[in-house]
């Protein structure tokens, strides 16, 4: 598979933010629309330039919201793209699809968008029963969703190699330090100590509240185009140096990859091979972090450390501000805001563009000036995995 011909050929050219955190009285659609319009503006494009539109899936609508579709988003943006698409159940193919559409000649500028009003709408991953009545047979056993399913994987990992709260508290605390440098992070004003982590209540053991991602109102969008076109646009050029996907697909209850190797291993290898580099060339990571354990197993499968060595690897702030391998520099899904894979991927782009203010990698945070950042996105419960290597040209 000779993907090296695609290395650096495509770039991410505009990032769209919205107010985020707790932003009441807003529909999910409004966040998709605002983030998308801001991404278009940020790139220096006009609405009519967008000929491809790909939405992340929307969770079940809350309040009296309508379900967000690409049709609806295009209508509200006043655009008529050549291609409309939306992932059906977190199969994280957005960036690879965007590149493929441009490479094949169907599109020039592909907009990727996500939004939700989860926090104000009362959607919950970690608190009591505010979600809709479950439809799956497993609910008869009291089985409820993502926290428990990732916790099952984490428990199996504790059995197969040395991991657990000692490793995860380092991840949670290191990421919180990044959030404390990020004024738009939900946890900007809330420092976290190891004691805070240990005192946070159990949700589904072995996970505590501080092992779980946030729930957020807000949205995030970005635009993919050719690097050739990117050079004429407003922002510094950040290319997709490598990209890979892998979809083990099996439901977590029947999976044999709870303790790895997850899709990160094969997807990571594909992306590194395409980029023609090894993990030793990576300056920082932006890792999909729905739970602390997800960060550990992803970096372990990428090859940053061996099974069970994370306990020492994350110590002494290696991934925190000032550390030698910064991870999740916005605070991530754990401490900034939850916008699926858009949280890590857009942060990687913003860091390479040099637009991150107080949390900017380089001299400002006592870290290496970044040239190459490894990002990941993860769908369902380790069933889908995407790896992106971003580079500042």
């Amino acid at each position, binding site marked *: 598979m000779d993907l090296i011909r695609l290395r650096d050929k495509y770039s991410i050219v505009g990032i769209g933010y919205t107010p985020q955190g707790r932003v009441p009285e807003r529909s999910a659609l409004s966040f998709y629309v605002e983030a998308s319009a801001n991404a278009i503006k940020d790139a220096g494009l006009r609405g009519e330039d967008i000929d491809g539109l790909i939405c992340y899936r929307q969770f079940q609508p809350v309040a009296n919201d309508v379900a967000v579709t690409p049709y609806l988003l295009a209508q509200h943006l006043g655009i008529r793209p050549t291609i409309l698409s939306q992932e059906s159940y977190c199969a994280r193919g957005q960036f690879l699809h965007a590149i493929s559409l441009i490479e094949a000649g169907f599109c020039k500028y592909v907009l990727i968008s996500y939004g939700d009003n989860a926090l104000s709408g009362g959607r919950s991953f970690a608190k009591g029963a505010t979600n809709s*009545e479950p439809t799956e047979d497993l609910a008869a056993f009291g089985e*409820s969703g993502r926290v428990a399913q990732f916790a099952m994987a984490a*428990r199996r990992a504790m059995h197969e190699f040395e991991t657990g709260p000692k490793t995860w508290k380092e991840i949670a605390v290191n990421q919180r330090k990044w959030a404390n440098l990020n004024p738009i992070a939900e946890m900007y004003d809330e420092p976290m100590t190891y004691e805070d982590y240990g005192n946070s209540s159990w949700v589904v053991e072995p996970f505590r509240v501080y092992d779980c991602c946030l729930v957020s109102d807000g949205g995030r969008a970005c635009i993919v185009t050719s690097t050739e076109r990117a050079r004429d646009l407003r922002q510094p050029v950040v290319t997709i140096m490598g990209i890979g996907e892998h979809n083990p697909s099996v439901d977590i*209850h029947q999976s044999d990859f709870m303790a790895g190797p997850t899709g990160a291993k094969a997807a990571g290898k594909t992306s590194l091979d395409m980029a023609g580099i090894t993990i030793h060339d990576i300056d920082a990571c932006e890792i999909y972090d729905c739970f602390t354990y997800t960060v550990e197993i992803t970096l372990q499968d990428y090859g940053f450390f061996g099974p069970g060595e994370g306990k020492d690897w994350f110590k002494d702030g290696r991934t925190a501000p000032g550390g030698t391998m910064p991870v999740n520099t916005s605070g991530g899904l754990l401490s900034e805001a939850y916008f699926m894979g858009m949280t890590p991927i857009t942060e990687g782009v913003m860091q390479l563009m040099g637009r991150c203010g107080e949390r900017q990698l380089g001299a400002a945070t006592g870290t290496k000036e970044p040239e190459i950042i490894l990002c990941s996105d993860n769908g369902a419960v380790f069933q889908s995995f995407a790896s992106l290597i971003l580079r500042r040209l």
Partner: protein
Amino acid sequence: MSNGRPLPKPNADTAPFWEGCQRQELRFQKCLQCGTVRWPPSIICPRCHSMDTQWIVACGRGVIYTYVVYHVAFHKAFQGDLPYVTAVVELGEGPHILSNIVNCAPHELRCDMPVEVVWEKVIRQFTLPKFKPVRGANHDTGSGT
């Protein structure tokens, strides 16, 4: 009465399993070509794509592959059960199924612990397979048939 608990909703694929539960039998499909015992139910074998299938009754013994302890009730009907345990049980025949572990304090559980099925009648139409530790079991005998 189910006390407001969600109940299984048998469909064309899963009905034979739930009918088996009513008779206190753990039924799974076995591929007659390659011998794979599969879960969830399907029209073909995921290993060899044969449609040649027979329903078998599993022995009801296995080991805990993994487990978690709920400290939050995401569905209000389970509030009174907290803390409760859900687990993936690896049955002797191979399938991994989700269930509850009963008759055991959560902190005595561990992965690979041998367990056996116990039947819990929820309402007249539904009996659920749950699992309890096999007392005094040798650690290695859980996967026998």
